[in-house]
């Protein structure tokens, strides 16, 4: 197999796939990338067994062939070659030779058949969605995912597909984030999948801030994002997501409208003197006014007062300040609405005008 390619054409896809290769590997083959040359072009694949990245690049070359090359070394060689250099890659048995100008490198290969790439899978559903819509969906919810929780199904983001709608839900058991977006989902009944943490972070990295559509393919075990020149696949979490609908409080009668930024800044200031472990902050709602109290084991105290639009009876409630700040940061409108019922019930945080994102924070007993 002989491939000739311009350095710049190879470098970008190579950097993209090498991002998936983990530095510490238990299986030697996973530090390699799968290189395939064929009629469709040059395809590069890297995986860490949880996520997989494939790129396609056109090239000038002869035969169809495949092999695997050490990812890091291959990338470093291409990266350090001079700009506009022509790269010749020749695979000869167990060795691969890279030539460019007066440089020559011989790399060790491993057989392509040893490479555990996912390849094609049976698609059970799919949809097209604008890239920025999907990105926003993830950005507004992903912070609520659990981290290394024993309930492994919480260590990911739930994507719920129903006709015409995609919903993202994340929870760690203390707070929950939910966001809806409309999309052309060709599906008859609701489908739930859980994308693991790592896959979620890769997705946000890949999605651009444009309204160009992107195609999402779902298999029973995988989610794949594909465009003509690359495809990203993540395994799914094997588990059932808890019934989140029951967590979202309904019928809260105490409605507070506040200026988001003012409230957030007040909370951030108050949090400086809250207990470092529990992060507890006391909220006291009275007519038109919210007072925030925090204190720590050293008996230091913080007190803040924020003007809010509230006309109910007095309510005192405690929260983990980080959870409230996270939720407020995800709200995009200047005004935010907090819906409460009593000191032992969840608080629902929403944008003052929109209904498509909901944040639920559990109260703390003070």
């Amino acid at each position, binding site marked *: 197999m002989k491939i000739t390619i311009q350095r710049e054409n190879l470098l970008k896809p190579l950097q993209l796939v090498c991002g998936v290769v983990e530095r510490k590997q238990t299986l030697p083959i996973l530090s390699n990338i799968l290189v395939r040359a064929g009629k469709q072009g040059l395809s590069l694949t890297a995986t860490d067994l949880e996520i997989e990245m494939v790129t396609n690049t056109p090239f000038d070359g002869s035969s169809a062939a495949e092999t695997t090359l050490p990812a890091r070394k291959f990338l470093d060689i291409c990266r350090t070659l001079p700009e506009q250099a022509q790269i010749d890659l020749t695979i000869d048995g167990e060795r691969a030779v890279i030539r460019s100008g007066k440089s020559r490198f011989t790399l060790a290969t491993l057989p392509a*058949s040893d490479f555990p790439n996912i390849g094609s*899978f049976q698609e059970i559903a799919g949809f097209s969605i604008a890239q920025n819509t999907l990105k926003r969906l993830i950005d507004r919810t992903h912070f609520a995912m659990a981290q290394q929780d*024993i309930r*492994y199904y919480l260590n990911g983001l739930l994507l719920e597909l129903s006709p015409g709608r995609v919903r993202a839900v994340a929870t760690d058991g203390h707070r929950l984030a939910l966001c809806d977006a409309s999309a052309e989902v060709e599906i008859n009944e609701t489908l739930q999948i859980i994308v693991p943490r790592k896959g979620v972070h890769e997705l946000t990295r890949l999605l651009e801030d444009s309204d160009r559509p992107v195609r999402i393919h779902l298999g029973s075990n995988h989610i794949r994002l594909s465009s003509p020149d690359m495809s990203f696949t993540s395994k799914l979490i094997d588990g059932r997501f808890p019934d989140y609908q029951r967590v979202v409080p309904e019928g809260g009668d105490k409605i507070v409208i506040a200026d988001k930024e003012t409230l957030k800044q007040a909370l951030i200031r108050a949090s400086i003197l809250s207990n470092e472990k529990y992060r507890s902050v006391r909220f006291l709602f009275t007519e038109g006014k919210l007072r925030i109290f925090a204190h720590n084991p050293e008996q230091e105290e913080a007190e803040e007062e924020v003007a809010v639009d509230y006309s109910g009876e007095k309510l005192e409630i405690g929260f983990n300040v980080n959870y409230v700040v996270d939720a407020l940061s995800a709200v995009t409108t200047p005004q935010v609405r907090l819906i409460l019922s009593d000191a032992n019930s969840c608080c629902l945080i929403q944008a003052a005008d929109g209904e498509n994102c909901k944040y639920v924070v559990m109260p703390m007993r003070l």
Partner: protein
Amino acid sequence: MNEFLPWHAEPWRMLIERLRQGRLPHALLLCGPEGIGKDHFARLLVQTMLCETPRPDDGQPCGICRGCLLNAAGSHPDSRVVGLLEDKKIIGVDQIRELREYLGLKSHYAGHRTVIISPAEKMNTQAANSLLKTLEEPPARSLLILVASHPGQLPATVRSRCQRVTFSLPSSDTAQRWLSEQTGPHQDPALLLSLAGGAPLAALEIARSGKMDQRLALFEDFEKLACGQCSPVALAGAWLKFETQETLYWMRDWLTDMIRLKSATQPPTLINPDVRQRLQNMAAMLDLKTLYQHLDRVTEAARLATGQINAQLLMEDVLIAWQAHLPGKGKIPRHG
């Protein structure tokens, strides 16, 4: 070796039958003496579960499909093997926690997901407890295979959550026939098997690793020591280059044989028939009680050698005691 071993035919047939009916349990505990191929059996079972086209007659893996190729390369994403890490004597809790992450995700090729834990009895308490959660709520289409030569050392909570498959030693005919196929004509299969306690894979290991020569060299040293021709401390130092536990096991076998020679009225069956006369000579110098005392000492030392102990001091202790027992030195009076 891509086939099941001849003496595994029965458990193989049973498990393949259950696999085909979809009635395989979530966890198997393979137990039986060491060196009879339990690990091989576990790997073959995993390979056939991940094979795309297993052979229709006996359910063995085809060896040519993608699953089999990946398995052969050791890179199948739906198979995990947890064993002792280099320089470690136990399986730690981190190794088991990683499994939870692996089993939390769906399978790579939409088939089964498998885990082999071998030797399972080397899990420490934390690791075993951490495994319980997985054993209690295994994800669908997953199989955990625990391989243990000493299942009694596993916590009862783990044992009770696995289905046990017990392997026994093959008949000596079967074992000898298989062994001579593997080793070729230059080895004595009967002797190898006898040294390995009847376990064919252990016997093969002895034949292939050149331990036969090592054993004879050790025996010669042992004889020299018995005749007072070398010092026990020097010998203990020289023997450090061999695996302590194994050396102690050889010694245990020689002592056992000497006891047999001394107590039997008819020529007894020996573990080391090739050095019968030399053992007889040595045994003649000692009495039965001393031999038994020393056997106890060596057995205890072999047990200690599994833990954290200074190998040189342990060996010195054993050898000094052995020499002290010998009449040639005259340090202690002969018993009885």
